[in-house]
């Protein structure tokens, strides 16, 4: 393991911890009494301090240390969690992010201009003076009012299973003050042949001289407190005992400190030299034999691996290939070979393995949206502060899974819509009070899956879109704003904005059209629902383009198509349906309602999907309508791998992609919502789509 590799691990983890910090702090603002979040935030600062120290990024370590101190006081209940404190900590988090980013790019720890003032503010808040060596409670003045602690550590043997490493605790103790003596007990160590390296046989007695109080020393062991007997006791410093115990004088510079090897109690054992070697402050421990460990938590994380997404894509492709080739092999083997029971059993086993492989490969790319969505709490918080509003972001449906590449593409559109919700949707606090609306205002970020699509909704309980203003602005721009539908379509036109005020992101007239374009780029589409005084909801509907799909394989003339099973409500014998014609539109009467019929060959570009003798009507659920699609035959239902048409060609309306069937032939995967749009382009909106509609408020 080279240093670069370890640094990479550090960067990844540091960013994760910084995200934890950020998210936690914002959550705490809403819910300051939440001990769980507070603990998490504290742990994040704590881990960051340790790992950055190990990685040699001392500035980060320094700042994280003060943050940790402040957070610890909040945890102890001796300091209130105020908005000011939160802002300061968030600012510090931003600065730390910058430092990590710069270090990741340049391998240099360069400090942004905000670093020194922020650190100063933090230190002032913590009531600390920063010595040159940075650690609070300075090592330098340990001679003055330092106390001596005797620490006895008897961990249980299974300690390593929890991912803890005692060495890291020693590093941390060393930061608190001066480790005067370390004694390692090796009596229980079995002979080499019986030694189980996953068990801990060592125990320690340590002597620490530090200015911090007993609780702070105990704090070091907060994560291992249930993992053994840990005893911290303050002992009186007697002059003559000092001489015997300390070995080095307190004035000596710390890098020259070595752990005294003179054992005071047990004579036949000795201090482990490798521990002693690493005992100077971590940043000095760069001996080649001592690879740096990012932190204790990294040990816990060894069961996750970071993989390039291209590799995952390749995996999905290849596993799909294997399944197809297996089908082809079976066909080529022919009947006589398949008569053999042995061969049949083998093929069956192989098929199971392959399908397992395929579904595993596919699942690799799907991630729950939770983490990505909760990231936006910070954005909403900042936007609210900037706009002088009180807003709470409620994230729902975090367990919904979405292809990670889609998720990445959506980040900007979501940002934009949230920003809009805070800036334009939500009323200022005084107005809300006057209207008797709840404070803080609520903004929902919601994800759910329905009918083979993933939906993301951004909703606010604000004032709703000002339809009058939109109409007026549309007229000024010479756009058609006759009906509600046209008018709302205008919202997504380039250059359209009714905002009086320009903020960071929203209100520059480069808003919703950009959102629309980026959503459509990944095969999604966006609609808006609003009601004056009640709120606005933007809904992004996404295909599962990159996912596997449970599909209904249907034949239309000579062509095979796949309908996403989630969009299919029912299949009905075609002759049993009673047709009517209203305004030249074909409808069928089914279970008390009229359902439009869409012949695929009527759609522009689909002419060759000529239905010959329809046997079955497939009832599908589009975005706002139900449709009947007559098909010649239902071939079967099967799981298909969605392949992009866009990669080698372009996006085709009404088509999600294509898939390769078991025999190597290609079937198109139809996009029911797209077909609905193609077919109903001229149909007046029946329900929600693009009209003023009641917004469901929770």
């Amino acid at each position, binding site marked *: 393991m080279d240093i670069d590799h370890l640094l990479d691990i550090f960067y990844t983890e540091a960013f994760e911890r910084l995200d934890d910090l950020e998210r936690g702090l914002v959550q705490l603002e809403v819910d300051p009494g939440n001990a769980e979040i507070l603990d998490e935030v504290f742990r994040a600062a704590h881990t960051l301090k340790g790992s950055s120290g190990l990685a040699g990024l001392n500035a980060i370590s320094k700042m994280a240390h003060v943050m940790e101190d402040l957070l610890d006081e909040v945890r102890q209940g001796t300091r209130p969690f105020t908005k000011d404190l939160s802002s300061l900590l968030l600012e510090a988090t931003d600065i730390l992010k910058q430092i990590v980013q710069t270090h990741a790019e340049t391998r240099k720890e360069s400090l942004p201009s905000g670093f020194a003032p922020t650190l100063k503010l933090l230190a002032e808040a913590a009531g600390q003076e920063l010595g040159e060596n940075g650690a609070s409670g300075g090592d330098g003045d340990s001679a003055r009012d330092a106390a001596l602690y005797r620490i006895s550590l008897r961990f249980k043997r299974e300690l390593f299973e929890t991912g803890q490493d005692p060495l890291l605790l020693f590093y941390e103790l060393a930061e608190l003050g001066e480790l005067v003596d370390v004694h390692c007990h090796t009596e229980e160590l079995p002979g080499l042949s019986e030694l189980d390296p996953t068990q801990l046989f060592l125990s320690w007695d340590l002597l620490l001289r530090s200015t911090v109080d007993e609780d702070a020393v105990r704090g070091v062991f907060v994560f291992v407190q249930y993992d053994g007997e840990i005893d911290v006791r303050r002992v009186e410093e007697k002059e003559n005992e000092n001489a015997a115990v300390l070995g080095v004088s307190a004035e000596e510079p710390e890098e020259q400190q070595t752990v005294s090897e003179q054992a005071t109690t047990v004579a036949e054992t000795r201090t482990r030299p490798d521990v002693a070697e690493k005992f100077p402050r971590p940043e000095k421990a760069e001996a080649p034999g001592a690879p740096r460990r990012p932190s204790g938590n990294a040990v816990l994380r060894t069961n996750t691996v970071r993989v390039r997404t291209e590799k995952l894509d390749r995996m999905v*492709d*290849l596993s*799909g*290939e294997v399944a*197809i080739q297996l089908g082809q092999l079976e066909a080529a083997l022919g009947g006589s070979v398949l008569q053999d029971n042995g061969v049949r059993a083998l093929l069956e086993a192989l098929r199971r393995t392959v399908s397992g492989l395929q579904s595993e490969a596919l699942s690799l790319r799907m991630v729950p949206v939770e983490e990505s969505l909760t990231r936006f709490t910070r954005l909403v918080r900042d936007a609210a502060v900037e706009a002088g509003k009180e807003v709470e972001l409620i994230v729902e449906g975090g367990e919904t899974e979405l292809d990670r590449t889609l998720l990445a593409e959506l980040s900007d559109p979501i940002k934009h819509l949230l920003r809009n919700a805070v800036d334009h949707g939500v009323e200022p606090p005084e107005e809300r009070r006057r209207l008797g609306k709840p404070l803080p205002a609520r903004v929902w970020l919601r994800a759910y899956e329905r009918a083979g699509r993933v939906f993301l909704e951004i909703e606010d309980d604000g004032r709703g879109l000002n339809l009058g203003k939109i109409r007026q602005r549309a007229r000024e721009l010479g756009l058609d704003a006759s009906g509600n539908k046209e008018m709302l379509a205008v919202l997504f036109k380039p250059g359209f904005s009714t905002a009086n005020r320009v903020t960071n992101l929203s209100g520059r007239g480069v808003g919703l059209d950009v959102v629309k374009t980026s959503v459509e780029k990944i095969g999604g589409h966006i609609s808006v629902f609003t009601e004056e005084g009640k709120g606005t909801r933007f809904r992004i509907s996404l295909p599962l383009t990159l996912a596997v799909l449970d599909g209904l394989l249907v034949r239309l003339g*000579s*062509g*095979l198509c796949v309908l996403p099973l989630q969009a299919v409500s029912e299949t009905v014998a075609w002759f049993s349906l009673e047709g009517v014609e209203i305004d030249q539109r074909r409808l069928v009467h089914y279970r008390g309602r009229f359902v439009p019929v869409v012949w695929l060959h009527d*759609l522009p*570009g*689909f002419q*060759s*999907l000529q239905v010959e003798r329809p046997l079955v009507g497939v009832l599908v659920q589009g975005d706002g309508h139900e449709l009947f699609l007559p098909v010649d035959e239902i071939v079967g239902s099967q799981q298909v791998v969605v*392949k*992009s*048409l866009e*990669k*080698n*060609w*372009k996006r*085709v*309306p*009404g*088509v999600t*992609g*294509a898939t*390769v069937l078991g025999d*190597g*032939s*290609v*079937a*198109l995967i139809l996009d029911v919502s797209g077909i609905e749009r193609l077919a109903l382009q001229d149909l007046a909106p029946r329900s929600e789509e693009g009209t003023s509609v009641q917004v469901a408020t929770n």
Partner: protein
Amino acid sequence: MGESMRTEKEADVKKVGEVDLSPAQMVTFRVDEQVYGLGILDVHEVIQYRRPEFAPGDPPWMLGVIHLRGEILPAVDARVRLGFPQKVPDPGAVYVVLEKNGQRVALLVDAILDVVQLGSVELDKPPGVDREDSPVAGFVRVKDRTVAVLKAEAFLPAAERAL
């Protein structure tokens, strides 16, 4: 698969996109009675004809899609694209798989001919083919016949707007 034909790319070959010079090596094929060529760097491989599955949409020279080793390729009819009437493919019909700008397209041609060595020859550009939207980059004489050198990008979907 015997019909698959790949040729080693050579480092010193000029790109066909730079239309003034002919490519050093060219894959030639027949569409109707005319011989056409494509720079070898734009040709990924040549595969046997297989019936494309229908895919909707335009332009009219888009025949549908075929499956090639896990990838879905659009099948493009060179006859229609180059202004010949569409017809049922001959037994000798093959797809020339083009690769350009990260996209792969299977170009259906009537027959594959051979790979010809050209070196640096200036392309002859009579009036009418010097337009931006012409699929033909220019003409070159090879032995006793005239080869129309095609632009690979003319068979990609982006080119349809220029037509």
